[in-house]
């Protein structure tokens, strides 16, 4: 019919363009709202509120820790490498209180002792042996029931003589009790152990004395003083390095503690008294 308005008979594809226009308009509208409320370029109406919220969430301790980390990076100078970390729930139970650097008392050797946390869990050194069971040592990985390595520090790169770079940085040597009847049981407790979880739950409800008591109980099977060096670093040590996938030359170095090279270079080297203070 001649007089019929035909305004709506646009080609359908044009609606797409129309909607794109709308979307751009909406985007710019959001931009304008942002400009007025939060952007540092505009009147920033909401910024005081935002600042207040940030202020309430700030922690002096956290700030200090971050600052220290930055400082340490520069103090260290030799290119700090950031390694992936185990999630809280997969760590051995000791990590609720202790860090990767648990030793601090003996000035001479604390850093050396801490170095061993790369290789073992705490119990490997600090375990109280059971009368009815012998202790066997195996690599333990929280992600992998039967880790096969290669593990950190178990072999040298033949080209450079450096330790071989490995992917598996979480595996550690852990003790297992082996009973006379052939049963084997891990001596290790990780953070999702029922007792540990229970402790984390009720920790705030306990009085300081109660907390101390509980902690004492956690250490019942733990020797305060770990093994002496030569318990492992000798030919008849409790760890069979070769069996634990150390390369032959690496195993010899560990058994002899690289002493040979050092004694000839340093007159004042005094290994016999090293761990006695």
């Amino acid at each position, binding site marked *: 019919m001649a007089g019929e308005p035909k305004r709506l008979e646009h080609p359908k594809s044009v609606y797409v*363009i129309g909607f794109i226009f709308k979307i751009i308009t909406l985007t710019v509208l959001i931009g*304008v709202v942002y400009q007025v409320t939060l952007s540092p370029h505009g009147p920033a109406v909401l910024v005081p509120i935002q600042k207040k919220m940030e202020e309430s969430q700030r922690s002096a301790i956290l700030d200090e820790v971050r600052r220290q980390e930055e400082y340490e990076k520069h103090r260290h100078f030799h290119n700090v490498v950031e390694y992936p970390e185990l999630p809280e729930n997969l760590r051995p139970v000791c990590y609720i209180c202790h860090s990767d650097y648990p030793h601090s008392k003996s000035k001479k050797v604390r850093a050396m002792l801490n170095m061993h946390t790369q290789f073992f869990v705490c119990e490997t050194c600090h375990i109280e042996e059971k009368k009815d069971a012998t202790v066997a040592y195996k690599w333990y990985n929280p992600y992998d029931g039967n880790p096969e390595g290669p593990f950190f520090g178990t072999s040298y790169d033949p080209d450079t003589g450096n330790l071989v770079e490995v992917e598996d940085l979480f595996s550690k040597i852990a003790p297992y009790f082996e009973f006379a009847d052939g049963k084997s049981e891990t001596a290790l407790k990780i953070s999702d152990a029922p007792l540990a979880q229970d402790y984390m739950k009720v920790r705030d409800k306990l009085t300081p004395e109660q907390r101390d008591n509980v902690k004492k109980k956690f250490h019942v099977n733990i020797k305060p003083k770990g093994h002496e060096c030569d318990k492992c670093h000798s030919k008849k040590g409790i760890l069979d390095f070769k069996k634990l996938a150390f390369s032959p030359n690496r195993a010899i170095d560990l058994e002899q503690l690289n002493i040979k090279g050092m004694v000839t270079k340093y007159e004042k080297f005094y290994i016999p008294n090293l761990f006695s203070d």
Partner: protein
Amino acid sequence: MATTTENIAITPEATEPERDYTYVEDVGNIPRDIYKYVKSDPLGDLPRYSLHIVAQHFLTFLTFLILASTGLTLHFADLWWAPYVMSLFGGPDLARLIHRFAAALMVLASVYHVITLIAGTVQKIMKKQFNISRTQIPILKDIQDITHDIRYFLGKEPYRPKMNKFMYKQKLHYFAIIWGTFVLITAGTTLLYPEMMATIWPNPQFAQDLARLMHADEAIMAITVIVFWHWSNVHLVPGRFPLQWSFITGKITREHQLEEHFMEYLHNLEEIPEEKEYMKKLLKDKGFETK
């Protein structure tokens, strides 16, 4: 579609000849709300823009989009989204080249526009066809149109004003663009050639500071106005959505011409015999024929 007979705004009692009808010789009395009944092709029925103007508009708006997106990203460099947008342009070192290339193209389009404008005007004067009310030059009637239109939108007038080829909105926008382009080109040149412009401006330090300020502020204003006003008015408001094809086809729909540029429609009637025939037939079909 609605049937054509419903909602006819004109009732015989309310008739006021000057306001409701416009008499055109050979056609008859055209009711003011005839645009509700005309046949209207969305792609456009009546000529409005020459090919030059269409080309200029394309050049301007494409370069504008590029200029705005590169420039705005640089201006808001400290905001979270800026790096993502910048990566689309291949980093700031490439984006600045794109920005400058687009700017050069836009200047070219402006020069092109000025040339066609002058040439076209001269041609019209020569042919004695020049009519000031069909140009972008603001005249007193525009102010009357604004007040009339506002009154219409508030419901105090029955019809929209009878406007010329360029209504008040278009004139406002046209002069905003002229001012904006002038400021952006001047400030942009100062930013692009600081060494040369420093020798020209009386106080190089202030000139540079002002250029930094004006270039960004003017650009942001242009973007806001174009998005919230130009696009909205032209493509998004009810009756225009999803798209007006004028910027591609150079033609305007009959319906739109009648509503917003009634005076121009009368001009079209004089120019185009077919249109006259069509209108005559329409008036007859609809029973608007005057005795």
